[in-house]
């Protein structure tokens, strides 16, 4: 989890991501935001080197064109609810609050729907740290490109190198 905070990891991710984006631009004429997000997630998962469940789940998921990856798992959610019903307290109509929150969390972290609470919290910690790095790296790339656009092409290369 600590590694997501290192500069090295940040550099590896941002350069890999940028290369992946340039590659996809060469193959298709335009990249939609969804595809870009998907690419960013996949490169993030690769950078994780398969040590976590969420990263393996991202890489195992099929590439969907323009739809949210999580949507095809919707059917499973209802099964989950049904099996939990016997545990409900008589006084409360719904699940205990903590159980509900855990369920929500399971839906947010890739590949963790059937995970035990213990492992889920571990995966969540790593996932959050990785997401934060993803935000930092993508912001850095965006700033570079935006800065480059504001200046003349010949100036751009020189000034970026001075960063």
């Amino acid at each position, binding site marked *: 989890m600590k590694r997501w905070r290192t500069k090295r990891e940040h*550099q590896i991710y*941002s*350069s890999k991501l*940028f*290369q992946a*984006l*340039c590659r996809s*631009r*060469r193959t298709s004429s*335009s*990249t*939609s*935001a*969804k*595809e*870009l*997000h998907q690419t*960013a*997630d996949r490169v993030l998962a690769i950078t994780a080197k398969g040590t976590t469940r969420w990263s393996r789940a991202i890489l195992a998921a099929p590439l969907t064109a323009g739809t949210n990856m999580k949507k095809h798992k919707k059917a499973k959610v209802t099964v989950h609810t049904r099996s939990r019903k016997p*545990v409900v307290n008589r006084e409360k109509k719904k699940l*205990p*609050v*903590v*159980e509900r*929150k*855990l369920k*929500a*969390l399971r839906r*947010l*972290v890739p590949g963790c729907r059937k995970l*035990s*609470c*213990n492992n889920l*919290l*571990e995966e*969540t*910690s790593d*996932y*959050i*740290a990785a*997401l*934060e790095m*993803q*935000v930092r790296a*993508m*912001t*850095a*790339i*965006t700033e*570079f*490109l*935006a800065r*480059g*656009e504001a200046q003349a*092409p010949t100036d*751009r*290369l020189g000034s*970026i*190198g001075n*960063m």
Partner: protein
Amino acid sequence: MSSRRWRESSRTNMSEEQITQLLSTLRQLLPEIPHSHSHKASSAAKVLKQTCNYIKTLHREVDDLSDRLSQLLATIDADSAEAAIIRSLLT
């Protein structure tokens, strides 16, 4: 407190100590939000809810960034500057 809930649900066979430890790990990850009662009074449910919200916030941020990046890439010619950009990202 939250300990009773854990005992009721036989599904979770973690000790309270483990739960407390993991929750404190999560709490450290969450950004500091000034609450009126943000101290140790945060129940497990509150921490989990904040965690879910935070992950959703991060997802949205990445969505926005993806939007902007896809627009920027479409307008500029990244290929010619690719090597220079990667070099600068790595320093």
